């Protein structure tokens, strides 16, 4: 009779108690796995959002990430097209990269002079086709239906603004923005004034050929690379919700060519970042290393650096840390409950089997043998509870995922399906199982030690 078989039979002696203990472990495993799967899904969702908009890696001028917001134009990358071409040619990078595209960030003031309102904004010039391609990235299989950018197929002077910008610039009406409260009438008399002549002249000079006039027009005032003011008249095609009010209130997207004309005029255009989107997030270390090698050799005349999406989006790290903290807190609570449940079960078993312990010791089983017997029982409870917990958690997660429930996560403007990722999350599953089994073994250890240290004569006398 092997120790394992004996432990299993002993567990089956008091089936109700063993079942209750296993149930507690199942509930514990489920709680940990379902929350873990939920937070994992949020992590993947955030990552997908960031990667779809800003890529996995960005090549920037050194210092741009920290200081560039003050004067982005100064940190423009010269010959960015050569860098992009080199990346596309590179035999190491090319298989990993799905999109490599330039962007230009511009800080400025957007004004609706017809309404007499303006506000500071942060505009991003982008290559629309590349941006649309990036939106297709879906490495984690979310049930997404990516729509192309509203800038798709629009004239070069078109722009998309955040709903917050639309609200402040009083463009909700023309842009048909819902839930957009209008401010009370102001008394300073600015409203309705025409565009000042100098600004109007600047805007006309920057007007690209074939520009489309519309009901929603704004003027974007920005500093050129030389420090002089420049204005672009933009036709706003849509207001979109970014999900975060602070971003919604400053967001402007426009064609890269328009943004470059605004900042660099007739000079050679630059980009503040070259965005790289990879096939898989796990390729980041290899791609980053190769990029740094490439930049240090072929483009050493410019101080360039490579930043990953986690560095570029501190919120991502903060969100992960927050969920990790909550997950850890829940795991500790569950662990404590399991610990006391298994410990209680094993303690009762020790008391009930005191005479047996004495008998086994009398016929020659060592103290370690007694200890091993009870620890095996704890281990078995842990393995059975954790395994059933995983199976049931996968089932529950599947039910939730098929239920059609939706929610709007922070930082998003639209609802997403409520998804719990348990199936396929090997690390989460294995980690939870190992954790629960360890807790069960530790829980059984103390009663097992007590059993092993029993005086044989006292144990045999036990009634």
């Amino acid at each position, binding site marked *: *009779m092997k120790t394992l078989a*004996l432990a299993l*039979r*002993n567990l*089956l*002696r008091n089936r109700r108690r063993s079942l209750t203990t296993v149930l507690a472990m199942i509930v514990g495993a489920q709680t940990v796995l379902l929350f873990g799967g939920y937070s994992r899904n949020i992590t993947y969702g955030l990552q997908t959002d960031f990667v779809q908009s800003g890529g996995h890696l960005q090549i920037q001028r050194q210092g741009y990430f920290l200081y560039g917001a003050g004067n982005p134009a100064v940190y423009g990358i010269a010959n960015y097209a050569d860098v992009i071409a080199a990346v596309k040619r590179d035999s190491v990078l090319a298989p990993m990269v799905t999109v490599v595209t330039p962007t230009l960030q511009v800080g400025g003031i957007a004004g609706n002079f017809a309404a007499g309102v303006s506000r500071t904004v942060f505009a991003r010039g982008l290559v629309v086709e590349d941006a649309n391609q990036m939106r297709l990235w879906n490495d984690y299989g979310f049930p997404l239906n990516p729509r192309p950018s509203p800038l798709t197929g629009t004239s070069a002077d078109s722009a998309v603004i955040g709903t917050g910008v639309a609200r402040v610039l009083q463009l909700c009406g023309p842009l048909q923005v819902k839930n957009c409260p209008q401010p009370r009438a102001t008394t300073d008399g600015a409203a309705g004034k025409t565009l000042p002549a100098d600004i109007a002249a600047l805007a006309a000079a920057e007007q690209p050929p074939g520009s489309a006039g519309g009901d929603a027009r704004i003027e974007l005032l920005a500093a050129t690379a030389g420090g002089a003011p420049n204005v672009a008249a933009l036709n706003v095609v849509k207001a979109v919700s970014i999900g975060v009010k602070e971003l919604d209130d400053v967001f402007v997207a426009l064609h890269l060519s328009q943004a470059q004309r605004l900042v660099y005029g007739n000079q050679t255009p630059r980009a503040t970042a070259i965005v790289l989107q990879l096939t898989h997030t796990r390729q980041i270390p290899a791609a980053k290393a190769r990029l740094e090698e490439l930049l240090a050799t072929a483009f050493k005349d410019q101080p360039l650096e490579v930043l990953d999406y986690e560095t570029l989006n501190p919120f991502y790290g903060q969100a992960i840390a927050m969920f990790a903290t909550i997950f850890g807190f829940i795991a500790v609570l569950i662990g404590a409950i399991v610990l006391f449940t298994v410990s209680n079960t094993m303690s009762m078993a020790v008391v009930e089997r005191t*005479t*047996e312990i*004495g*008998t*086994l*010791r*009398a*016929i*020659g*089983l*060592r*103290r*370690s*043998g007694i200890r091993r017997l009870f620890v095996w029982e704890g281990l078995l409870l842990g393995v059975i509870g954790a395994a059933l917990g995983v199976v049931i958690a996968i089932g529950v997660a599947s039910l939730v995922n098929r239920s059609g429930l939706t929610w709007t996560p922070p930082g998003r403007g639209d609802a997403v399906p409520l998804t719990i990722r348990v199936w396929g999350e090997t690390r989460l599953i294995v980690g939870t199982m190992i954790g629960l089994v360890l807790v069960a073994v530790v829980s059984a250890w103390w009663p097992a030690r007590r059993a092993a240290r029993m005086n*044989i*004569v006292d144990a*045999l006398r036990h009634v």
Partner: protein
Amino acid sequence: MNMPSVTLKHVAKTYRLDAVGVPALNDINLEIRPRRFTVISGPSGSGKTTLLNLIGCIDRPDEGEIVVAGEPVQRMPDDALSDFRARHLGFIFQNFNLLPVLTAYENVEYPLLLTRVAPAKRKERVLALLAAVGLSDKIHHRPGQLSGGQRQRVAIARALAPSPQLLLADEPTANLDSQTGAAIIALMRQMQREHDVSFVISSHDPQILAEADDAVKIHDGRIVSVERRGGEAEAAR
């Protein structure tokens, strides 16, 4: 030369009840002869179970020296003592003390697992012992499916499994009716002869006393007399 199975010299044992010491055995000197059916008798509380526990190496004396199967055991480390019990001693208990989750076969097999007997030899030994105690048809029965007498037969087979030099039985017939008790006594006697093993039995059952080769009488923790039947009789030393 017939070396004694057990030798006790000036053995004393006192139990502590709260802060009060209750002497259980006092200055015990005794030799258990090999291949004998030795019965320790005496009134309740006289110390016979304590004496049996000391001989069985499941308790340690406060004073004195105990030699079992040629080995001084009183200062043997716990693991070594466990191994010693597994190899040299067998136990039969008043309440049978079989493991309820194991079948008759598995209960008898268990001590052989502790002494790491090879599977084939183990099986042969277990089946032979169960046949010897008349339970060949009950090998897959668990203790709960056996009568008291059958359980005690399994316990006897278990005690004999590791081929011990000494077999200890504490009131083995106390929980059996007289007819079953008589059968168990006869079986023990038969096994003692067939297996050439020393039996030390604590009992006040007259049927067992009648079977004794050596009868040790104990009273208030002291040996009153040792009767070596078929010859010598000695008074307590």
